[in-house]
């Protein structure tokens, strides 16, 4: 800043004794977002040349920054992303296999009573589900056991014994429908997540890890259940603990 500009700024600061914002307030807001313009700021800027220039310099700096951030994008980025989805999608078979698939599925379903739902790695899915919903683990609600029991009834299950402090409870969107998602604060293992996949889906028992989360999918009382913990060593105990506390209706 040149010496010539300093008097203007001093005057503006003095003027702000009767207005809502000081030069410091304005410059803080300009630094956080140069595009921001409240009525109070506008009033200040109309009197303060120094802050006006400060804002203009920041806008110019942001314009240079915006240009610099626009790094070249690799050719075919979008097409490759769409292709990967297409290759993962069972739709690629549809054009040439649909008739054969329908016939085969009907035959097998009749003879072998195969489930219609797609087989998925539910252990991995629930681990991902928990990792994707950090708010559920951060929840500090005090939910009554009766609420959980009511939802469990939809899955043909009921509580045999209390589970502990219920922090979070919801019916979440999952592949093939809505599943139950409950977070329980236990004394033994800290937070344990109980997931009941949507009714009717095929669940192959197994274990999986995703990020910091370890999950086991299993069958108990003729129902598919999954449990998630933050420690692999706790998974088996937490699973057994859940099994003893849930019963079929």
């Amino acid at each position, binding site marked *: 800043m040149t010496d010539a500009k300093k008097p203007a700024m001093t005057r503006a600061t003095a003027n702000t004794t009767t207005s809502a914002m000081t030069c410091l307030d304005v410059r803080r807001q300009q630094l956080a977002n140069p595009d921001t313009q409240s009525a109070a700021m506008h009033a200040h800027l109309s009197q303060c040349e120094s802050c006006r220039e400060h804002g203009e310099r920041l806008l110019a700096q942001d314009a*240079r920054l915006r240009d610099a951030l626009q790094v070249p994008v690799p050719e075919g980025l979008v097409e490759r992303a769409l292709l990967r989805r297409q290759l993962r999608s069972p739709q690629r078979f549809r054009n040439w296999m649909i008739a054969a698939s329908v016939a085969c599925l009907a035959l097998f379903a009749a003879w072998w009573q195969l489930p219609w739902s797609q087989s998925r790695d539910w252990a991995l899915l629930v681990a991902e589900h928990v990792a994707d919903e950090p708010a559920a683990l951060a929840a500090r609600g005090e939910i009554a056991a009766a609420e959980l029991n009511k939802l469990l009834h939809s899955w043909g299950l009921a509580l045999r014994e209390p589970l502990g402090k219920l922090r979070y409870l919801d019916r979440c969107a999952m592949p093939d429908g809505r599943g139950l998602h409950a977070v329980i604060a236990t004394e033994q293992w800290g937070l344990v997540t109980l997931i009941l996949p949507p009714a009717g889906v095929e669940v192959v028992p197994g274990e999986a890890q995703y990020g910091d989360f370890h999950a086991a999918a299993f069958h108990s009382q003729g129902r598919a259940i999954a449990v998630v913990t933050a420690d692999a060593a706790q998974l088996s105990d937490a699973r057994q603990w859940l099994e003893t506390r849930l019963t079929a209706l």
Partner: protein
Amino acid sequence: MTVATRTYELAVRAYAKDLYRYAYWLCRNGSQADDLVQDALLRAWKHWHRLEDAQAVKAWLFRIVRREFLRQLTRTQRQAMDQLDDDMLQAASDGSADMADTLAIRQLLLQAPASLREPLVLQVLGGFSSAEIAGLLGTRDGAVMTRLTRARQWLRRAFGADAQEERSA
């Protein structure tokens, strides 16, 4: 083509470039950023059924890119992402670099602490508000404002502006 397939395709076409640029400034490596975006978009497709608010698709995709990036880091690296590095803040204070061209600014941004660069990229490139950035980074609105302020101060010092002027305000 199903509704889900169509909306996914539209979202990829609309946001893939911004996602790549965000990924680039996260990992500071072009090919790694490319892989990151491809993996993130595939993961987004896998969970597309969970997208309940179509208005929030952009923030949701950015969040997935960030989560994929963090997943690849060690716990120590992850913690370092959230720490303000005061030594790094001072490192560019000499203002000696010639900032007349875009490449020089990019070079400077590559040296910026991740905790400052990321909210700045999300605001300037992604067009997100400080509240939205706070949601993406899992922090408070006020903390984002502080980081944005410090990021611009850091840049200004690096651009060689007269720091004396700011202190006099």
